[in-house]
């Protein structure tokens, strides 16, 4: 564990070191790229005056809300498409068409339909997370070994039992992989949505600090976004480990 952590930290520490050296040696314009010390101080300021928590709070609320919406639609649609070839034939072409359109392209549309407030942001986030959740759920269900389903028939499983004892657990590794990808997508979509149309949140913090030419704070915002995204992913990795104890890793 310690060795892996050290290996993982080597590159980021190296980058910080290079960054520090470049700014110290005045190789870069510090208005455009302030030194790491300044950026870390900006993070400390954001934490100290409580602004960070305000932005983080609203961003997390948005991402959790949008992600929940994506699950609400993505899981059942994925299950239906994976399980039933008729549903697949009916829905898949349209969904694959939609998948080609990036979330950012929908932002003006959602603002027009849902207003500039929270609903349009939730919609963008949900849209961004929907596809990985849906596709991985469908793939997980679609690739269940016939052998398990036959075993279920031999054990006289009713549909609900087949779902509980075979379909859901067999598809779960793929579903969880979809959740991780979906969470990553929604976090990125959130930041984009907040940069385009918001008056708070981490995305707004970046745009706002750029307009105020407070570049240390702008980089601080980027650092926080990366870190929180990483923490969210680690939480899902933890969930994965708990849900899939039966799997070989």
């Amino acid at each position, binding site marked *: 564990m310690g060795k892996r952590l050290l290996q993982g930290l080597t590159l980021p520490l190296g980058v910080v070191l290079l960054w520090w050296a470049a700014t110290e040696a005045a190789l870069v314009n510090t208005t455009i790229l302030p030194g790491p010390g300044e950026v870390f101080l900006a993070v400390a300021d954001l934490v100290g005056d409580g602004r960070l928590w305000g932005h983080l709070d609203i961003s997390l609320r948005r991402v959790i809300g949008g992600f929940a919406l994506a699950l609400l639609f993505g899981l059942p649609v994925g299950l239906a498409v994976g399980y039933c070839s008729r549903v697949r034939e009916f829905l898949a072409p349209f969904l694959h068409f939609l998948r080609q359109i990036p979330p950012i392209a929908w932002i003006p549309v959602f603002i027009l339909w849902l207003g500039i407030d929270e609903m349009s942001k939730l919609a963008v986030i949900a849209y961004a997370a929907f596809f990985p959740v849906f596709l991985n759920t469908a793939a997980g269900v679609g690739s269940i*070994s016939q*052998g*398990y389903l*036959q*075993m279920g*028939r*031999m*054990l*006289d499983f009713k549909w609900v039992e087949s779902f509980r*004892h*075979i379909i859901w*657990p*067999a598809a*779960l590794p793929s579903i969880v992989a979809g959740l991780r990808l979906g969470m990553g997508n929604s976090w990125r979509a959130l930041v984009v949505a907040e940069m385009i149309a918001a008056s708070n949140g981490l995305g707004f913090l970046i745009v706002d600090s750029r307009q105020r030419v407070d570049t240390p704070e702008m980089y601080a915002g980027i650092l926080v976004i990366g870190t929180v995204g990483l923490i969210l992913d680690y939480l899902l990795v933890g969930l994965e480990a708990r849900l899939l*104890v*039966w*799997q*070989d890793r």
Partner: protein
Amino acid sequence: MRWQGVTVDYPLRRLRAVQDISLEVSGGEVLAVMGPSGCGKSTLLKTAAGLVIPTEGTVQLGGDPLSGPSRRVAMVFQEAALFPWFTVERNVVLALPRTMPLAERASQVSRLLDTVGLSDFAHVFPRELSGGMARRAALATALARDPVVLLLDEPFSGLDVTSRRRLARELAGIIAERALTTVLVTHSVDEVLMLADRVVVLTARPGRVRVDFPVGLPHSRRGNEPELDTLRNSLYRILETEE
């Protein structure tokens, strides 16, 4: 268990798996089915399980035609014989009759795991079991249904020689004790000779009965009886000469 003129076609794959098979296994008899790969052995077994319905002909159990899986028939699959996401104990519990009272289930599970020698592995996931242990766990789930007919699809494949012999001996004991009518699909001549009362060899696809001969020895075999050598030689001769 009786097959009468059974033919199975898979229209999607455009192939005939087995053709015009008529066979009968009497109560308590152990029938081994052998033959080249892809000759329809597993298909034949699945017709007995009620998982594949014959295109022509019928499969009967105790005089009644089978139209789907029956409670009286249990099958140990070659692959996917256990649900990997459940512990050994849970796998066995799921196979127990649902009408069984909860209190009885626990004792039944421990009895079954004891029968297959896996008492200490109740709470283990299948991936943590060795190949031989996984087969025995799958056998416990099959026995949990308290079947009349036991179907075994390649129960020894992928096991080393020692595990195969041990499993064959244990199987022989369990089958004899419960007087199970058994149909066993396998490539393994030695294990067939330790277990089977009768051997049927199928032709290449579409499988038809090519040879049907009795082993004619009591069930309690050690595997080194001189009569078995003669049988082994003739069985190898049959298997090696393609029809």
